[in-house]
């Protein structure tokens, strides 16, 4: 991925966040995004990063970042303890993206998810014409070296959100040239020209139901669509 697109990504994420919010960045790398959020909109940030080297770089920046694996270390965060949970360019490397997506919205009131769109026309053409796994700016790896487990498109993601009772509050597409447009407006062909998509998500209105059992009482968040 080129540097330019990373910055675009961050700028758009920042635009989705209210000032002075509590933000958790999952897969925060060396903490560039959260550092920017702290400086520009006074976010109170935390980060988690799997790579020891990047984690240490983030710590040396004075950021509160823990080394850990988003796949099974997210259970240490309590319910609704953050205003926003960010998962930037990471969903496609998760073994169980659906579970992770649910975790994001358990921890945070809102989630911001960005990913490379596998439905981009260049990818479709490459596969169609060459008959080989596509390599693009956003997905620059050979199939046998790629850290990405899952290849999905904007439509795939929208379907999953619908199925999981997740509301898409905002969604923005970025073309490979860095132009941005609203994905909510259902522009024809947006799935073709978006190389990278950013979603602001929340759970559909929930009601907490307390269920009493003989042994113990526990809480179950079942979706009740109002």
């Amino acid at each position, binding site marked *: 991925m080129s540097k330019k697109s990373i910055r675009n990504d961050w700028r758009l994420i920042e635009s989705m966040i209210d000032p002075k919010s509590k933000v958790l960045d999952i897969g925060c790398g060396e903490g560039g995004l959260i550092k920017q959020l702290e400086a520009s909109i006074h976010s109170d940030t*935390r980060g988690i990063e799997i790579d*020891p080297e990047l984690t240490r770089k983030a710590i*040396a920046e*004075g950021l*509160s970042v823990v*080394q850990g694996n988003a796949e099974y270390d997210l259970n*240490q*965060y309590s319910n609704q303890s953050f205003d926003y949970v960010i998962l930037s360019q990471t969903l496609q490397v998760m073994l169980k993206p659906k579970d992770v997506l649910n975790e994001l919205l358990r921890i945070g009131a809102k989630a911001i998810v960005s990913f490379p769109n596998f439905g981009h026309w260049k990818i479709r053409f490459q596969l169609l014409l060459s008959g080989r796994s596509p390599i693009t700016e956003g997905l620059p790896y050979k199939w046998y070296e790629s850290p990405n487990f899952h290849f999905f498109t904007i439509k795939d993601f929208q379907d999953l959100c619908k199925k999981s009772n997740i509301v898409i509050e905002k969604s923005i597409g970025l073309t490979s040239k860095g132009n941005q447009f609203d994905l909510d407006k259902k522009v024809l062909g947006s799935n073709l020209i978006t190389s990278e998509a950013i979603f602001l998500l929340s759970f559909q209105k929930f009601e907490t139901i307390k269920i009493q059992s003989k042994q113990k009482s526990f809480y179950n968040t079942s979706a009740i669509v109002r």
Partner: protein
Amino acid sequence: MTHKVEIKKNEKLTCDIAFFSNTNCNLDSGYHLENFKIAYKGFGKLNRNRNNAILVCHALSGDQFVAGKNPITNKDGWWARMVGPDKPIDTNKYFVICANVLGGCVGSTGPKEINAMTNSHFGTDFPSITIRDMVKVQKYLIDALNIEKIFAVVGGSMGAMQVLQWTIDYPDKLENAIHIAGALKHSAQNIAFHEVGRQAIMNDPAWNKGSYKDTETKPERGLAVARMIAHITYLSDDVMHRKFGRKLQSRDIISFGFDADFQIESYLRYQGKSFVERFDANSYLYLTRAMDYFDLTENFSKSVEFSSQHNKHINYLVISFTSDWLFPTKENKQIVNILNYNTRKVSFSEIETDKGHDSFLLDEPELDLTISGFLDSNFIRLQDK
């Protein structure tokens, strides 16, 4: 506070000793400690804002000579590679304080010192002490030095235990806490190793129920064995294999006897021998016991959860080592999890090394970078406030 304090230079120990009298210091055991002394050494200078003090808490076998020369061993201080001018904990920038713990044997009140009541050595008449007691007397020292707020408390192993205790007992006295290779509690396995060490000392006839000072013969063999056992727990299988393997010591063939045929045997014997020259056997009993009694499983989470207003400001840094089986990553992570569960400002780094628990004292560039980066960036932040 009605207690009195007098700070004197000690030429022989090349450090300062703070004498506290008429104190109201009650130990966890119920013992009332009216007078006590704390031997400590400062490195660097306290700045005008008095906000650059770093308290380093030493481990079981450590002392106040964290940097510079140790006058007893004539070797470098135990963390001289971490603390000093232009070192990761830079004494050009920070004022580093290191105090010999309560119950220690390098100038602070402990079993080796004279009991004013009886005019002979305390020996096993010394009250049982805990990590909390150690921290309590350190707090007396920090107050005596007129330091309102410590910039950071730093420690590994038994030092890490003190760091956690500081964050619970005196959270408003500190800004940052660096906890290296520690745990919320001393595990059953760790207590077991300590018990073997203590049995080695107490079964040495020279120990004489702790009053060996009077007979002028010290339980050196017992203490050396205790140190040898403990030293094994500070290493790892991999590092022993890498450094010693099955290599023989100054010989080409095995002796068919019980000499130190193998290099590892010779190494451990040397470790034991050099330890008894500088450490007191009774002190070893007391300090290992203090570690055994350490258990913050309940108190730490309670303190983080319920006294949130007091310790919310603290930046925590937790560091563990992959090959440390005495205080493994798993146990360090428990602390991180509690802090994260309560959305505290915590950083955590696991450093990949084969050097075992001792890694925190050894050449680990990643450890240096993490500590200096954490301290320096938070110090800049503090100045900006």
